[in-house]
């Protein structure tokens, strides 16, 4: 995890995104405990209220849940849920900006598609 105080993104959103990423990549597997607000707060020197606000985003998205007295746990099916969400955002986050940049560079649709194909060939 890495929190960038100079980013345009509010800190609580960065916390939510980083935790989500760690869950998605399996650092925190499903049905295991994630670090407490206390631990995150002390490690990055961030106000615990901000950390909690970030965690609550993931609670609302049903990616983590609170076990009373034990802390926050990753929900079963969280990884699938994150994948679905990110697939939904794929067009907005990657394709739209790629097309915008390509048109700034006066690249044609065919050229862009050829590059995408080259990318797949190199994989």
């Amino acid at each position, binding site marked *: 995890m890495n*929190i960038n*105080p100079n980013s*345009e993104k*509010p800190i*609580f959103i960065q916390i939510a995104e980083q935790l989500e990423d760690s869950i998605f990549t399996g650092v925190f597997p499903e049905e295991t405990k994630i670090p407490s607000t206390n631990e995150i*707060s002390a490690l990055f*020197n961030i*106000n615990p*209220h*901000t950390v909690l606000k970030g965690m609550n985003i993931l609670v609302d998205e049903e990616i983590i849940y609170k076990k009373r007295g034990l802390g926050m746990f990753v929900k079963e099916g969280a990884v699938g849920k994150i994948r679905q969400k990110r697939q939904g955002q794929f067009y907005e986050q990657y394709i739209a900006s790629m097309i915008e940049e390509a048109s700034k560079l006066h690249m044609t649709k065919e050229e862009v598609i050829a590059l995408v194909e080259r990318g797949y060939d190199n994989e």
Partner: protein
Amino acid sequence: MSKIQIKNVTKRYGDVTALDHVSFSFKSGKIYGFLGRNGAGKSTLINIIANRIFPDEGAVFIDGLPARENMDVHEKIFCMSEADLYDTGMKVRDHFKWTGRFYDSFDVEKAFRIAEEFGLDTGKRFKALSKGYQSIFKLTIALALNVPYVIFDEPVLGLDANHREMFYSLLLKEFEENERTLIIATHLIEEVANIIEEVVLIDNGRVLLQESTEELLETGYCVSGFAKDVDAYCLGKNVIGTDELGSLKLAYICGEKTEIPQGSSLQITAMNLQKLFVKLTGKAVDGNAVAGNAVAEKGDMKL
């Protein structure tokens, strides 16, 4: 009623008005950043809250009780001040013992524990401590005191980077374990930017703004690009400062963001708390007098 309420406080030193009819509150359960330039009136107000000096007008109330010469608020508030008010010939461990006599809520064991964490030699006399360790000594006492309101006036003066990080971690741990109101007055703004939940900015003896850190950071931003595009974008916005780099212009704005016109050269970037502070309070040193005064006129404006 759980708050420190500052009501219409004025303090004059001869011809100088250090505080000019200041009114606001520190609410319970938050970490505040109390910011202002040198001579803005921070320490004067802290000293009034801590009952060390008295206002010429107005009053301070702590949980509804007048703060002035009132033993009932003694156990409610503690102020770690920049000035050294301790008996310099007394040993650290004796200071701990005596603080315990003056405050019921002082946790002596915790003080020794924190001292050990910082590597503070409790057998040394106050005057034998280095500047950094004198600060650490004062911090230790403040951290070990379990009162609902703690004010830290320049808490990390002379501390090295490791000790500063340690202090912030300890402070947050304390806050997490036992939620109360912590007020930090500091010039090292970026270091506390993520710790403080709300900012009170004081300038020329008046409250310039009181705002949640998050909202403040969201409303403050920088737009850059060709000067004429930037000027057009800034029309009707609250510009708090500008910089120029050849034909590139940077404007610092407080307020709502509007869409950048399509295909323009403009770029919007975030402004950090320190930059925002410098631009909002910079009128005394740079040329943005008009913008600066416009902000000051509004008093405790809502951005």
